[in-house]
């Protein structure tokens, strides 16, 4: 039978009916399912969660600033979504493989991306700066939802290799309307693939509220496909961590896919090109500001004496240093050589493109010759 962890929320935009471990005021609360998955968490891991959320926020702020200063072509702020990104990512092993959208900055922070990896592609110098196999994270996806199928395919590969890694697909609330995301659930269920679907329901797909994509909570869909789902407070990093461990327990045990809907909020514009005042109230944004994922976690950790001023200061300093590195990486991003546009189109020689490359090289050469002559 369908096994479901959905709550009795009745609209897709509901924010109350969620599983959570930290209330918005920082109190530790209980959840019958999640508690067990957060039980053994160490103080060190709690600090690591806090640190990565702080780094994520700082990187995000720097990204916005760099874009405003004309150093980046675009930036997709993740402010407000640090908990779901960092919390779920920390539950993973480094050999799990992750497929993300363009907004999962916190996942990259958690996977140890380098400063350049945050900026060089937004600057428009490269489509991607890192080797996916170094981070076990795919180049972020732009085509909405496409990566969910990649995660399922990767998970099918894991099965065939007889290993116990998991694949993870991150995507947004808007993405759930795409055929691909639904096909991904169907394939995952059919093949009992070890894949975790993480839907960051940040309430908005650019200007479209989640209520346009769905009448019912998004987490209600998965059970119909035979995939258990969990609706969690996406601004509760501990809840997200535990939810991911719940999901991974399934995938690692061979029970197949699991689905997490993390209810969160996109505090900033969709991207730096967007003007959210055209379609949403500042009052809504203010309400969500009071649910800030970092504030609430910091309260808890301070209350439980897991962190103190000194730790917070050291993390801030580290974050500033990372931001400085990032700025540096942006300002000094190496420009690819002109003929580099022809690199890596094919893995093997291709007579047509090789000719084109040669002709373009001759053209560029002729140009230089001309300039030299003048």
């Amino acid at each position, binding site marked *: 039978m369908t096994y479901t962890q959905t709550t009795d929320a009745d609209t897709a935009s509901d924010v109350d009916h969620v599983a959570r471990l930290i209330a918005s005021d920082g109190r530790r609360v209980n959840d019958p399912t999640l508690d067990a998955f957060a039980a053994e968490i160490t103080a060190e891991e709690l600090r690591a969660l806090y640190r990565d959320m702080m780094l994520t926020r700082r990187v995000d702020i720097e990204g916005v600033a760099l874009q405003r200063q004309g150093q980046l*072509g*675009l930036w997709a702020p993740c402010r407000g979504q640090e908990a779901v990104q960092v919390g779920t990512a920390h539950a993973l092993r480094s050999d799990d493989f992750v497929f993300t959208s*363009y907004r999962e900055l916190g996942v990259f922070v958690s996977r140890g991306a380098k400063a350049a990896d945050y900026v060089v*592609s*937004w*600057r*428009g*110098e*490269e*489509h991607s700066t890192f080797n996916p196999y170094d981070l076990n994270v795919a180049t972020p996806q*732009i*085509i*909405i939802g496409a990566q969910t199928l990649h995660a399922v395919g990767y998970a099918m590969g894991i099965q065939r290799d007889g290993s116990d890694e998991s694949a993870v697909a991150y995507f947004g609330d*808007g*993405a759930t*309307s*795409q*055929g*691909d995301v639904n096909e991904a659930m169907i394939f995952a269920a059919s093949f009992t693939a070890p894949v975790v679907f993480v839907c960051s329901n940040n309430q908005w*797909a*650019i*200007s*479209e509220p989640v209520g*346009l*994509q769905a009448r019912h909570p998004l987490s209600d869909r998965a059970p119909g496909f035979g995939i258990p789902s969990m609706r969690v407070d996406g601004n509760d990093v501990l809840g997200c961590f535990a939810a991911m461990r719940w999901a991974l327990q399934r995938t690692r045990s061979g029970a197949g896919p699991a689905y997490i809907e993390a209810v969160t909020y996109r505090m900033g514009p969709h991207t730096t*090109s*967007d003007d959210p005042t*055209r*379609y949403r109230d500042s009052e809504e944004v203010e309400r969500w500001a009071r649910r800030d994922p970092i504030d609430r976690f910091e309260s808890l950790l301070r209350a439980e004496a897991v962190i103190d001023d000194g730790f917070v200061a050291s993390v801030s300093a580290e974050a500033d240093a990372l931001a400085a590195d990032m700025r540096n990486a942006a300002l000094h991003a190496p*420009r*690819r050589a*002109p003929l*580099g*546009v*022809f690199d890596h*189109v094919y893995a093997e020689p291709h007579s*047509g*493109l090789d*000719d*084109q490359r*040669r*002709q*373009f090289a001759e*053209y560029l050469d*002729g*140009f230089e010759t001309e300039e030299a002559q003048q």
Partner: protein
Amino acid sequence: MSTMTMGKALNEGLRRALADDPKVLLMGEDIGKLGGVFRITDGLQNEFGADRVVDTPLAESGIMGTAVGLAFRGFRPVVEIQFDGFVYPAFDQIVCQVAKQHYRTRGNVKMPITIRIPWAGGVGAAEFHSESPEAYFVHTSGLRVIAVSNPQDAYTCLRQAIACDDPVVFFEPKRLYHTKGDVDLETDLADAAPMGLARVVREGRDVTLVTYGAMVRTALDAAVAAEDEGVSIEVIDLRSLSPVDYRTVSASVRKTGRVVVTHEAAREAGVGAEIITSITEQCFHYLESAPVRVTGHDIPYPPAKLENLHIPDLDRILDGVDRVMDHHHTATEVRS
């Protein structure tokens, strides 16, 4: 006659189409309150209501498939694809349903669907936001394909596309959205040149330079530069990529004897190949040298900072003109 940006001209075109025909409706992602990411539908939902300016769920196949159903019911949907690179999830519905429905129902079911696509590069956009997919649609029987290059054409052709009983894929060059020009909003659409006709943008004697969309401006710049070097270029803006107005194009080539086609899309099996082949078929004995293509490379669209290496610029067009003037033709032939 008033001066306005291409974006505004398109907005006016949509507004008047909505006002004139209750069966016209707009569909797309973020076209309502936001007015579209390029603001082309700005204010229209306010004016015509959410039933006629419809924000849809985020699924292009869904948008296109429901547009087909609306056309079955007698509506004339105008679909906005948010960016060129996002049309592919709708490809099946476009190629198999939109393009073929009239044929397979022996003309009983019309598909007067206009598919608006903010199109091509040159604006420093992110990956997948600068694609030039027009050749796919030109190759698809049953579709008409339009690409506009100035505010007046944008207005007129959009109105004509919406009024047309056939499906039209309508390409709007992103980098011209803010370009201004005179627009006569009161043109009688029946009197205006039909959207299927090409336009000689500049007359010339030596070379016919065929292009469309944002490249029309670059082509004109090249013509001016070439003039200085004593080469007289006739520039043709195709406007319609399917059908192509070969009467206009061939007349020019018969006069000049030389032709360069330039576009931003990849070369291999692109629109340029179609144009050159048709011209060669129709004007072979008038051709004084091999027609030349100046196009994007056969590569995925490169990162934004490198796009200027990909999109043909003035120099590359002039190099093409040089080649068609036979300055280098032996080199080309020997190379291959």
